[in-house]
């Protein structure tokens, strides 16, 4: 019989198990060998950015307006064909041409504030990791660090930036590439659901309703797979994510499973992780609507992220990207997986860095990404025509800037 609290017993059991271990099996040579292997893989993959990419597909037209002007924005589903570079493009923030306006909305994390492409600034009432126009105001994913409050909550703000809903836990929000629809997930204390609404305003409706379950079986929308359908992932509580499409109260999981990262309403596909090989995560582009789950192509050289608004390209990150980001960012043909152009961070010797986790398509011909170089960072516009620009927009503090609209 043991009367001690379970927590104390667990503490003792772990210490009894581990404390007698006095092992140093690794030499510095072992570590350097592994490090070289990681570096070689990065070089071979020659691709991509971002370990956990927040897919962001923002049409240029949308990013240039405030909520009240939304109806005047032309859809970006048929963008002009850009001139496309090939091979490897070095990205050096110091030598890049500086521009003073961002092509997409940015969040000044320490402000906190929203910096709009027209140069205007919206001071925000709290911290947000994503924010997009909704009705006369905004909808955003608020970040809370108070005990007992969900880390991420969905907040609807009116034109005066007053929160008009009861914030509830969320896994994120996405905006359709043409900017007309927005979807987000909510947990109501019993079950998760994905809500869908016109970005111009009006009532939201349930799009996907999941069976009752705990909050940590989090649902996160990843993107639109058609004009009216949203794909979302759900965590099974053990860290395994599956991707669901369809609608109503019986969402269907794509076979695989597929851990979706992004989707395209133009082509109806989902990009995400789907298996492993030699210890590396492998990704695939699969059908999201017709013949759902059918694999179009796979790669183990890139971790796939956001799909361009027109559906033609998908971004890939380095599978070995670490906490400091990915050394490269590769644009792949979304239909075939063929590498189109690779942006490679020009890092000084003995300096860690890479492209960070939030990035955005700016139309179909450029990507906006934050590049870390040692302790410094810069927002970069990477054109598919090979142009590299540094976005010189000031931020309030060390946290810097991040893109505002997930897509």
């Amino acid at each position, binding site marked *: 019989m043991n009367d001690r609290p379970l927590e104390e017993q667990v503490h003792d059991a*772990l210490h009894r198990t581990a404390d007698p271990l006095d092992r140093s099996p690794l030499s510095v040579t072992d570590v350097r060998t592994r490090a070289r292997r990681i570096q070689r893989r990065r070089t071979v993959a020659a691709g991509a950015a971002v370990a956990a990419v927040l897919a962001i597909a923002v049409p240029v037209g949308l990013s240039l307006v405030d909520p009240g002007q939304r109806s005047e924005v032309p859809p970006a589903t048929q963008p002009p064909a850009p001139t496309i570079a090939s091979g490897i493009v070095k990205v050096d923030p110091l030598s890049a041409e500086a521009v003073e306006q961002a092509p997409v909305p940015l969040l000044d994390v320490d402000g906190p504030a929203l910096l709009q492409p027209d140069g205007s600034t919206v001071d925000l009432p709290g911290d947000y990791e994503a924010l997009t126009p909704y009705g006369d105001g905004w909808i955003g994913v608020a970040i809370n660090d108070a005990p007992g409050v969900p880390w991420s909550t969905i907040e609807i703000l009116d034109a005066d930036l007053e929160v008009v809903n009861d914030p509830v836990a969320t896994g994120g929000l996405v905006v359709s590439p043409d900017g007309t629809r927005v979807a987000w997930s909510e947990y109501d204390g019993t079950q998760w659901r994905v809500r869908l609404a016109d970005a111009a305003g009006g009532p939201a409706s349930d799009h996907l309703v999941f069976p009752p379950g705990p909050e940590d079986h989090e649902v996160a929308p990843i993107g639109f797979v058609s004009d009216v359908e949203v794909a979302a992932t759900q965590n099974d509580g053990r860290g395994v994510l599956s991707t669901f499409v369809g609608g109503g109260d019986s969402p269907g999981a794509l076979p695989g499973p597929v851990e979706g990262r992004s989707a395209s309403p133009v082509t109806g596909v989902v990009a995400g992780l789907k298996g492993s090989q030699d210890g590396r995560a492998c990704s695939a582009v699969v059908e999201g609507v017709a013949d759902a789950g059918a694999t179009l192509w796979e790669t183990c050289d890139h971790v796939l992220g956001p799909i361009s608004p027109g559906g033609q390209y998908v971004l890939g990150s380095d599978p070995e990207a670490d906490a400091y980001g990915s050394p490269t960012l590769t644009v792949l043909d979304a239909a075939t997986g063929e590498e189109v152009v690779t942006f490679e961070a020009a890092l000084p010797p003995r300096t860690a860095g890479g492209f960070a986790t939030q990035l955005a398509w700016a139309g179909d011909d450029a990507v906006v990404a934050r590049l870390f170089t040692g302790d410094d960072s810069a927002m970069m516009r990477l054109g598919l025509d090979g142009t590299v620009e540094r976005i010189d927009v000031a931020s309030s503090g060390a946290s810097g800037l991040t893109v505002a609209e997930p897509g």
Partner: protein
Amino acid sequence: MTATLIDMGAHERQADAPVDRQAVKDADFSAYMSARQPALYRTAYLLAGDHAGAEDLLQNAFAKLYLSWDRIRDREALDGYVRRIMVNENNSLWRRAWKRKEHSTEVMPDTGVVDVYDDGMGGALWSFVQTLPPKQRSVIVLRYYEQLSEAEIADVLGISVGTVKSQASRALAGLRARAPQSLNPHQTGEDAR
């Protein structure tokens, strides 16, 4: 756990002497590894559950630390960096899938170390901890072995404090469910039968 302070700046103080920066880096890194490897190995073992997995986790984490060495200026943050990489890699679905494929041999899993004063419950609890889902197990190891706060665990795992609490609660409930006879102080031996 209490971190050991290591003098890894001795080379930097010799500012007037020409130095080979790579040699300095390797010397500093080697000093850190020598001082911290046994402790970090113990954490890796609790996360992985076997020695092969622990070595693999730790080697990968050290390698990534080595690649990032010049970037990390706060030397007191090194353990946290290594821990974060180990935990997140161990939690990765894809890594677990690979491990199942590559290590599904007939070799019996490591049994850990049994203290002679253990009444057997420690070994039983450890075996139950090994059956927990990876994220719950990470929370248990970080909370009750590393003795991190809930906020620190949330930071390591990249999840909310609320989720840390719920994961810990579910893990403890799971442990109670697996060993009800001996872990419930209100349950008698008669009940247990």
